[in-house]
C-alpha cells in the first residue's frame, strides 16, 4: 500500500512541477541584483543593500560545511556506533534526511520558519516554493549576502536537527515510518521553534522578542532534537537485548572520523552564523574550537577517573558535547568562558550518558538526548551566565556580567523548547505507531535493518 501511495504522490508532484517552474521564473530575482537595481531613483531613502563578496564566500563555504556535518559527518559518527548489521540503516537515516528536508525546506519549510511573521508564532505561507526569496539581500536577516544564501545556510540547520534524533531510535525503526515522521517533525516541531527564536521578517518570533539569546541554535537545534530524542526513546522502547547483549560499536574509527568532520563542519555552523566574515565570525570560531577541545578532555578525564580508562569514544563524544554546548553561546562569550562551558559540557554529558541513562533505563541508543538535550540545555543556560556585550554589542550581558535577568530569559526559552518538542514528538510518534507502526518486527531487528529495510549488506568480500 505504501508503495502505491508513493507512486501516486510522485507522479502527481511531477505533473505539478513544470507549472511551478514557470510561475516561479516569471518573478525570478535578477541575476546581478545590485547592478540591476542601480538605476533606481537616486533619491531612494535607503540604498539597495550591496552584496559583499567576502561575506558571501564565507556563508557559502559555511553552508557547505554544515551540509558536511549531516552527511557524511553525523552519518558516520552514528554509523560507527551501531552493530554491523545496522550500519547502512543508520547512515541512510542521516543521508535521506538531507534529501527530504532539502526539498521540504524549499517547498514550505523556509516559509514557515522565516517567512513573514504571524503573531510571533509561525511564518506565513508567502514564501512557499521560495516565492520571493531571491538573490538580493534581505536585510531583516543578512544585509550583505543574497537572501538565498541565508535560506540555504538555514536549510542545513533544518537538515541536521532531525538527523540528530535518529541516534535515539537507532537499530529498530521502520524506514517508511521514519520518512513520514521526518517530514512531520520538521514541519510541526522544527519550523515553529526556529521561527520563535530567529524569525525576523515583519515581526519577531516570540522568544526572540523576549530577548533570549541563541547564537547558532542551542534551543532550535539541540534542545529540540535532544528532547525529541528522549520522547522517541520512550515511545519506541528498548532494543531487543539492551543491557544483556553486547552492543559494542562496530567501527570506532568511523565514529571518530564522523566526530572530526562534525568539528570541522561546526565552524560553518557557529562562525557562519555571524553571516559576515569579520570579528564576530572570528570570535565564534575561536570559542567553538576552545570549548570543543576542553569538553573532549573533560569527558576523557571524567571517564578516566571514574572508570579507569581514557576512551576514544569518550573523547569523541566529549568533543561533540562541547560543540553542542558552545553553540548558543558562540557569538556572545570569550575564550576563557568557552573553556568553562566546554569542561561543563564534557562532564555533564558524560554523566548523562553513562550514569543517568542506565539509572532511568530508557534506551537512547546513541545518546542523542544525553548529548544534545542535556548539552544543549547546559549551553543555553551558560549563555545566560557568560554572555557579554564586549564580544557582541548586539547581544546582552549574562549573570556574570551584571545581568541576572538574562538567565531567566534563557530558562524560558529552554522550557518552551523542551515542552513543545517533547509533547509534539510524543503525539506524532504515538499516531504513527497506531497507523503505520514504528518498529520493525523482532525477527527483522535480529536480522538487522540493512537487510530487512534496504536489501543490502554494509560489508561483503
Amino acid at each position, binding site marked *: 500500500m505504501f508503495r502505491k501511495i508513493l507512486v501516486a504522490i510522485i507522479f502527481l508532484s511531477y505533473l505539478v512541477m513544470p507549472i511551478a517552474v514557470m510561475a516561479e521564473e516569471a518573478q525570478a530575482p535578477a541575476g546581478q541584483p545590485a547592478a540591476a537595481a542601480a538605476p533606481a531613483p537616486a533619491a531612494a531613502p535607503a540604498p539597495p543593500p550591496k552584496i559583499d563578496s567576502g561575506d558571501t564566500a564565507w556563508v557559502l563555504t559555511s553552508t557547505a560545511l554544515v551540509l558536511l556535518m549531516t552527511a557524511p559527518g553525523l552519518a558516520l559518527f552514528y554509523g560507527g556506533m551501531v552493530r554491523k548489521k545496522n550500519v547502512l540503516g543508520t547512515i541512510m537515516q542521516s543521508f535521506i534526511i538531507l534529501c527530504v528536508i532539502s526539498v521540504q525546506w524549499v517547498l514550505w519549510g523556509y516559509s514557515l520558519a522565516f517567512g513573514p511573521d504571524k503573531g510571533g508564532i509561525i511564518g506565513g505561507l508567502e514564501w512557499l516554493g521560495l516565492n520571493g526569496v531571491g538573490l538580493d539581500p534581505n536585510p531583516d536577516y543578512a544585509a550583505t549576502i543574497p537572501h538565498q544564501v541565508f535560506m540555504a545556510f538555514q536549510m542545513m540547520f533544518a537538515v541536521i536537527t532531525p538527523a540528530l534524533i535518529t541516534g535515539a531510535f537507532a537499530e529498530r525503526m521502520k524506514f517508511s515510518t521514519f520518512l513520514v515522521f521526518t517530514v512531520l517533525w520538521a514541519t510541526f516541531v522544527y519550523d515553529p521553534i526556529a521561527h520563535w527564536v530567529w524569525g525576523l521578517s515583519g515581526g519577531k518570533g516570540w522568544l526572540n522578542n523576549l530577548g533570549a539569546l541563541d547564537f547558532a541554535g542551542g534551543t532550535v537545534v539541540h534542545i529540540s532534537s535532544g528532547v525529541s530524542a528522549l520522547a522517541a526513546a520512550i515511545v519506541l522502547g528498548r532494543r531487543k537485548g539492551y543491557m544483556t547483549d553486547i552492543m*559494542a*560499536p562496530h567501527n570506532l574509527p568511523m565514529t571518530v572520523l564522523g566526530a572530526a568532520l562534525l568539528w570541522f563542519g561546526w565552524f560553518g555552523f557557529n562562525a557562519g552564523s555571524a553571516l559576515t566574515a569579520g570579528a564576530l565570525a572570528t570570535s565564534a570560531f575561536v570559542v567553538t574550537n576552545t570549548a570543543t577541545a576542553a569538553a573532549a578532555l573533560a569527558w576523557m578525564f571524567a571517564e578516566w577517573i571514574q572508570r579507569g580508562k581514557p576512551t576514544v569514544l569518550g573523547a569523541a*563524544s566529549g568533543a561533540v558535547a562541547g560543540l553542542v554546548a558552545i553553540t548558543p553561546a558562540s557569538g556572545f562569550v570569550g575564550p576563557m568562558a568557552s573553556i568553562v562551558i566546554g569542561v561543563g559540557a564534557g562532564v555533564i554529558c558524560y554523566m548523562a550518558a553513562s550514569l543517568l541513562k542506565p539509572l532511568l533505563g530508557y534506551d537512547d541508543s546513541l545518546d542523542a538526548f544525553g548529548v544534545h538535550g542535556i548539552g544543549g540545555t547546559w549551553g543555553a543556560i551558560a549563555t545566560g551566565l557568560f554572555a557579554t556585550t564586549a564580544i557582541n554589542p548586539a547581544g546582552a550581558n549574562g549573570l556574570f556580567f551584571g545581568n541576572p535577568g538574562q538567565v531567566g530569559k534563557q530558562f524560558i526559552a529552554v522550557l518552551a523548547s523542551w515542552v513543545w518538542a517533547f509533547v509534539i514528538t510524543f503525539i506524532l510518534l504515538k499516531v504513527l505507531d497506531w497507523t503505520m507502526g514504528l518498529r520493525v518486527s523482532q525477527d527483522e531487528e535480529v536480522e538487522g535493518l540493512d537487510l530487512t529495510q534496504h536489501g543490502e549488506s554494509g560489508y561483503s568480500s
Partner: protein
Amino acid sequence: MKKIEAIIKPFKLDEVKKALNDIHIEGMTVTEVKGFGRQKGHTELYRGAEYAVDFLPKIKIEVVTTEETAAKVVDAIQNTAKTGKIGDGKIFVSAIEETVRIRTGERGKEAL
C-alpha cells in the same frame, strides 16, 4: 591417517609453522577462531556500558598426516606454541579415514 587440530595463541603461528616445516610437514590449514577457557578475557567500555568479552582470539591449525608422523607433529606444536601462561591452548588428535588430493585425484598418503 590422523588429523591434528591445535588451538594456539595467534602470535605463535609463525613459529609453529616453521617448526612444522622443519619436520617436513608441507601442508596445513589455519582458521581464525575465538576461544573460551581458563584464560580470562577483558572488559570493554563504551559510554558507560561495560561489556565482558570472554572469547579470546585464537588460531586453529589443522594438519592431516600419517600415523607415524602424528606424534612428531604434536610434539613440535606443543614445544613451540608453549609460553607457559594460561591460554596456550590444546591439541586434539582424531582419525581420518580417507584423503583425496583434488588436483590429481590421488588418495591416501600420496594425497598429503
